[in-house]
C-alpha cells in the first residue's frame, strides 16, 4: 500500500530554534493519531504539510505529490481544521461554507449546495444562518470541521477536533471521523491531547518529542506487550484461586482482592482456569489479555524527551 505521507530528513528551523529535526516518517492511509507534548513540533509539521511554511532541508511526498512544489494542488486535496478559534468575520455559517467551497474552485450554486450538505452531515441546524461570531465554542468547532470537509479532501488534518464539545457531540464527532475513514476512504491525521480519542478511532500512532519522531507504528503493534500476560477476574477469593493456579505450574505475577495477573496467553491455560473454577465453585468474570496503554507510551516518549534535554 503506498504511503500517504513520506518524509525524509525533514528539518525546519526558526532562526536558532529547531522545530523539526531530521524527521523520517511514513504514514499509511487510514486514521493516524499525531501526539506529543507542547512544543514537540506537531503544529510545525502540519504547517509544513500544508505548505504554509517552507522547510529548511529534507524532502517528502504527500498523497504522491512532492512537498513544497505543488502547494496549490496539495491544498485542494487536504482539508485542515485548525485548533485556533478562527472564522471569517461578518459571515454566517452557510456563507462561510460557500466562500470556502468557492475558494476551492466550486461555482456559486454548487458551493451553496455542498455547504448545506456538509453542514447537515456535521449536525449544524438553523444556526447556519447566524453570523459565526455569535456561535458558541461547540458550534464553531463543528463549523471548522465542516469547512475542512467542504471540498471533499483526500486527507483531513484535524487539530484538536473534540476540544470544547460536550460528551454527546464528542462521540458524534469521533463517529463522523470513523465514517469518513471507513466508508469514504478519507485518511485522517488527528492531532490531539485527548488520548482516549486516539484509542477510539486511530489505526496508527505517531508521537513527536522535541522535533523528532519518538514512536511510530500501528496502534495494535504499539499496544501489544513485550511479555504476554492476561488478567483474570473471579467472583470469590482471588488468593485461593491464585494458589491453586500456581500449584498447577502457572506463573502468577500479581494478585489483588478479585483479580489475578498471569504470565502467558489465556488460550494456553484455559483448561486449568475452568477446572480450578469448577473445583473452587467460583465464577470467572473475565479473562483479558494485557495491553500497553497509550498513556503509558505517551508518558515514556515525553520522559525520554525530557531526559534527552537534560
Amino acid at each position: 500500500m503506498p504511503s500517504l505521507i513520506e518524509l525524509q530528513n525533514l528539518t525546519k528551523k526558526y532562526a536558532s530554534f529547531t522545530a523539526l529535526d531530521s524527521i523520517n516518517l511514513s504514514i499509511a492511509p487510514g486514521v493516524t493519531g499525531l501526539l506529543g507534548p507542547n512544543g514537540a513540533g506537531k503544529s510545525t509539521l502540519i504547517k509544513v504539510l500544508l505548505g504554509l511554511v517552507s522547510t529548511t532541508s529534507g524532502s517528502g511526498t504527500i498523497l504522491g505529490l512532492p512537498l513544497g512544489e505543488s502547494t496549490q494542488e496539495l491544498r485542494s486535496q487536504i482539508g485542515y481544521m485548525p485548533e485556533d478559534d478562527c472564522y471569517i468575520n461578518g459571515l454566517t455559517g452557510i456563507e462561510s461554507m460557500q466562500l470556502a467551497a468557492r475558494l476551492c474552485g466550486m461555482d456559486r450554486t454548487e458551493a451553496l449546495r455542498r455547504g448545506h450538505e456538509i453542514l447537515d452531515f456535521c449536525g449544524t441546524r438553523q444556526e447556519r444562518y447566524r453570523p459565526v461570531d455569535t456561535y458558541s465554542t461547540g458550534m464553531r468547532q463543528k463549523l471548522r470541521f465542516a469547512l475542512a470537509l467542504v471540498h471533499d479532501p483526500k486527507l483531513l488534518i484535524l487539530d484538536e477536533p473534540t476540544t470544547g464539545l460536550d460528551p454527546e457531540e464528542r462521540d458524534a464527532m469521533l463517529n463522523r471521523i470513523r465514517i469518513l475513514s471507513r466508508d469514504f476512504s478519507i485518511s485522517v491525521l488527528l492531532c490531539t491531547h485527548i488520548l482516549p480519542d486516539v484509542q477510539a478511532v486511530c489505526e496508527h500512532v505517531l508521537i513527536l518529542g522535541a522535533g523528532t519522531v519518538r514512536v511510530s507504528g500501528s496502534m495494535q503493534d504499539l499496544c501489544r506487550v513485550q511479555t504476554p500476560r492476561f488478567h483474570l477476574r473471579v467472583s470469590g477469593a482471588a488468593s485461593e484461586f491464585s494458589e491453586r493456579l500456581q500449584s498447577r505450574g502457572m506463573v502468577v505475577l500479581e494478585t489483588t482482592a478479585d483479580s489475578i495477573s498471569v504470565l502467558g496467553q489465556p488460550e494456553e491455560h484455559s483448561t486449568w482456569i475452568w477446572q480450578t473454577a469448577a473445583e473452587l465453585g467460583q465464577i470467572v468474570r473475565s479473562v483479558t489479555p494485557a495491553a500497553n496503554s497509550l498513556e503509558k507510551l505517551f508518558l515514556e516518549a515525553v520522559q525520554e524527551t525530557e531526559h534527552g534535554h537534560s
Partner: protein
Amino acid sequence: MAIHNLGYRHCEGRRQSHRTRWLVLTENGIRRAWASAWLRRMLFFAWLPSVLMGFMIFLYEQSESTDDPFTRAFIQMGTALLEPGGQGNMQASGMLGYLQQKNEHPGETRHLFWSSLLLTLFRRSQPFILIPMLGVITPPMISQDIRSRAFLLYFSRPLSRTQYVVGKLATVIFYVLLITLMPALMLFCTGLLLSPDLSVLSSTGDLPLRILLASLLIAIPAASLSLMLSSLTTESRFAGFAWFAIWIFGAFTAGILSNSTWGDSTSPLKYLSLFEVFSEVAGSILDPQLASSRVEEPVSILAVLTAVSLAVLFRRISAPMQV
C-alpha cells in the same frame, strides 16, 4: 437524522481554475462592503458633482449651437463662471483666457472645456468622497482577518498570498473606480450625446484613456496604502484613524511648510500632502497644459508609496504563519 440529511457524499463537480480564486475574495468583499448604509450614501453623493458638470456641458453645447451672439456670450460667461478651474491655473483656464481662446481657436475649446471639467471632478470633488469612503471600507478588511485568525482558513486552501492581496486590492479599487472612473466616463458620454455630431471624437478621443489612467493612478496607491494600514493592527478603528490622520495632518503640514515657511507654492514639501500628489498626477494626465509641475515627481512618490505599502502588506499577512 433529518430527512434532508444525505450524509457525506463525494463531490464530483468540475473545479474552476486556480488563477481566478482572487475574484471570489473580491466578490465577497464588494458584497460585504455594500452592506454598509454609509457607503451607499457616500456613493450617492459622489455622483452629484458629475450631474452638475453634465449640466455645464449642456450649457456649453447650447452656446455652440445658438446663432444669437448675445445669448451665446451670456451662456459662455455663465459656463465660465460655473467652471471652477484648477488651483493656480485661472490664467489658463479661467473665464478671460477661456473666452479669448474660444474666439481664436473655436475647434480646440471643447477639449479644453471637457478636460477642465474632468480635472475639477478629480481634484476638487472626488477626493472628499474617496477619503471617507475608504475610511469606511478598508480598515476592517485585513485587521478583522488578523483578529479572527481567518488566514488559517484562507491559506489552508488553494489560495496564495498574492491572490489574497490582489483580491482585497481589487475590492477597494472597484469602489474607487466607481467614484472616479465611472462618473468621469459618464460625463464624457454625456458630452458626446449632447454634441452636434460624432466628429467631436477626433478632438476629445484621448480623454477616456486619460480618465482611465488618472483613475488607476489614484486607485492603486490609495488602495495599497489603506490596506497596509489595515494590516498593521487588529483594531479596525486604529487603521481608520491612521488613514484620516495621514490625509489631514499631511495637508496641514504641507500647507504650513510650503507656504508659510518658504512662501513658495512650488516647493516639493507640498508633496507631504497626498491631496497635492494625487491632484498633480490627475492634472498632469487629464490636461498637460494645466499642470503646474512635471509629472515625474508625484508619480514617483505614488510608485514608492505603493511599493512600500505592498511590501509591508505581504510581510504582515505572512507573519501569522511564521509562529
